């Protein structure tokens, strides 16, 4: 974003309480971005524990993981992957629109991403419901669950935590993207929250890009 540096002299959110104006707008922009990247790093580390556990559990229970992954529906998973990739595209467009001061463009594109997120959650809940009917859900579990408990345990931990992040990402997009943009808050001089919301959304997508092949394809 260094090309935008010169235009950011007045990158101050209108109506912010005065006590946070303890640095100039250029510094505030840099601070916000650095803070967000650090936060994303902690998110990666959070999921790293799950990936690490997955690698080790798969090593111990290769057969079970292999069999277990056949019980997941590759088509639903694949469709969700496409949906999230599209949503990431629209989130990136929303940032460009914000940088151009196009508030309706931000609303429109974040709106598409938001709908994609909702679609992802609907499909995920269809998958979960199917598992529940087969007794492969932690609550109401039958022998089908216990046969694949190591695989399914990690499956639910990983996809569940990811789904939680999808929900948080949608809330963030709505509160910091769509709602202020409806009030024309963003301009070429101030768009930090849009950029940060999109960054978070990209990370949520990126994690799914790793989860999908790991759980559905490799097993």
């Amino acid at each position, binding site marked *: 974003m260094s090309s935008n540096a010169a235009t950011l002299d007045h990158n101050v959110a209108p109506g912010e309480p005065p006590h946070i104006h303890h640095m100039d707008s250029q510094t505030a922009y840099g601070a916000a971005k650095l803070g967000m990247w650090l936060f994303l790093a902690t998110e990666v580390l959070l999921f790293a524990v799950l990936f690490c556990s997955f690698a080790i559990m798969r090593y111990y229970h290769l057969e079970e993981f292999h069999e277990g992954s056949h019980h997941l529906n590759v088509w639903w998973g694949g469709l969700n992957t496409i949906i999230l990739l599209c949503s990431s595209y629209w989130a990136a467009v929303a940032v460009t629109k914000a940088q151009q001061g196009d508030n309706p463009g931000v609303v429109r594109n974040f709106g598409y991403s938001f709908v994609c997120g909702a679609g992802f959650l609907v499909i995920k809940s269809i998958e979960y419901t199917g598992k529940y009917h087969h007794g492969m859900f932690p609550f109401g579990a039958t022998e089908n669950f216990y046969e694949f408990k*190591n695989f399914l345990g990690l499956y639910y931990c990983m996809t569940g935590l990811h789904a939680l992040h999808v929900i948080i990402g949608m809330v963030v997009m709505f509160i910091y993207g769509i709602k202020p943009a409806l009030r024309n808050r963003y301009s070429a001089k101030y768009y930090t929250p849009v950029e940060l919301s999109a960054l978070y959304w990209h990370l949520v997508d990126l994690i799914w890009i790793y989860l999908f092949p790991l759980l559905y394809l490799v097993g």
Partner: protein
Amino acid sequence: MSAHTHAAHANEEVNYLNWKTGLWSWLSSTDHKRICFLYLFAIMIFFVAGGIAALLMRLELSTAGPTIPGIVKDPHTYNVLFTMHGVFMIFLFVVPGIPATLGNFLIPLMIGAKDVAFPRLNLFSFYLYVLGAACGAVAMLNPVDTGWTFYAPYSTTTDTSVSLMVFAAFILGFSSILTGLNFIVTIHQLRAPGMTWMRLPVFIWASYATAVIQTVATPVVGMTLLLVIAERMFGAGIFDPSKGGDPVLMEHLFWFYSHPVVYIMVLPAFGVVGEIIPVFSRKPLFGYKMVVLSSMAIAAVGFIVWAHHMFVAGISDFSAKFFSIVTFLVAVPTAIKVFNWVSTMYKGSISFKTPMLYAMAFVFLFMVAGTTGIYLAMLGVDVYYHDTYFVVAHFHYTIQGGAVIGLIAALHFWFPKMSGKMYNERVARIAFAMLFLGFNLTFIPQFILGMDGMPRRYYDYPPQYQTLHTLSTVGAFLNGFGYIFSLLNLLGTALFGKVKAPRNPYNSKSLEWQTASPPIHENFETTPIVNEEPYNYGTHAHA
């Protein structure tokens, strides 16, 4: 600042303590200096609670067999006590100990900023801490007896409120992450003009290294603890061996955080000592660059030594050897620091004020901690010492002798700046003497007990350990009274003291002493401009 608050205090100096009044103005304040006090009061509650648990344990251990039947009626109660002591002291007191209190107060002041980068996030971190503390306190209603390490499979099968307790630790970790993140961004972005990286006071460098560990290591334990909850809720089969899980995996993930966390605890104390010694020796800090580098080196090497906690847990010979060798490496940057502190004092004109006494005690105690750490890093020796009182004593020399003494040293050193008053020097020295003697009397016998084979976490012992246990108990109470006196001295003089502190009572050169005592809400009247290195004592007119 509104005209109204100006008028209300027209007769006295306006500072951050009095520029707004009322309890709510404190609880809702985003001022980093006020948040320091919010944390300080919160952590002290758990310091006292954890301390009471420790004293009850020591009382129980003062004689063989059941000693205080009313309170410690069985081994379970004893297990609860050491769990409570560990969880409260580690997660609720020492981890936020220096960073969240003095880090909050000093980082913006020392780098010449008006506040941290994200003041509202800072307040949010505090309330996360309060939420975590509340969960932890509620969990003690159905008391957890796993020890602070929550090792599986006991933690995944016992029916006490482990889930709530580890959730509390998760929330506290989240608070710790956000504080660390805030400090990293603050140090990167908000340094005053001329405050280059190589002009940063060593406390800032130490806090920076600490913040990096907080941000990088904490998510790992957070997720691990969530997996413990998942295991308990629906048998995810990750840590419980009866379900095909791997308990050693849990230990690895736990120590991946919990070893670096001892550096979260002790690095800020290194920073504190690095500030105190040059001021009271009137000499520049010896080898500034090496002190800085060693802080970063400790943070880096600290990440690859975790499995030295697990030499007897069934890890492979190869990894045991690897972790043993890298553990020895930690001794190098730590020894560099000790060398630099001692060299700073060499031929200095030392004044033995209370902060300096604590700083010197720190150097001595930490040296004992470091050298006994070498024993435990040795594979063969550790097999013998593992889970004995030797480990308990070693750990307390690093954490109490290091982190807690560092915190007390810092509270005395920056007390004039924080409260605008001077503490009672005589009481402070007496308290120091009690604390130092009591501490050594508690833990030197424990080293010997450990060498004689006394295992930790038992509430009973054969009669040959009687004398040493009794000595240790006497020491613990002396130590406890030392803390009470030193803290009451500070609290009393802060509230009722008559002696006003000048701007710069120690003639220090760092930025926080150049503004008023206590500072104004915005820290500085005008943004300071820095044009020299931080410890130029004795080289200019200031000598």
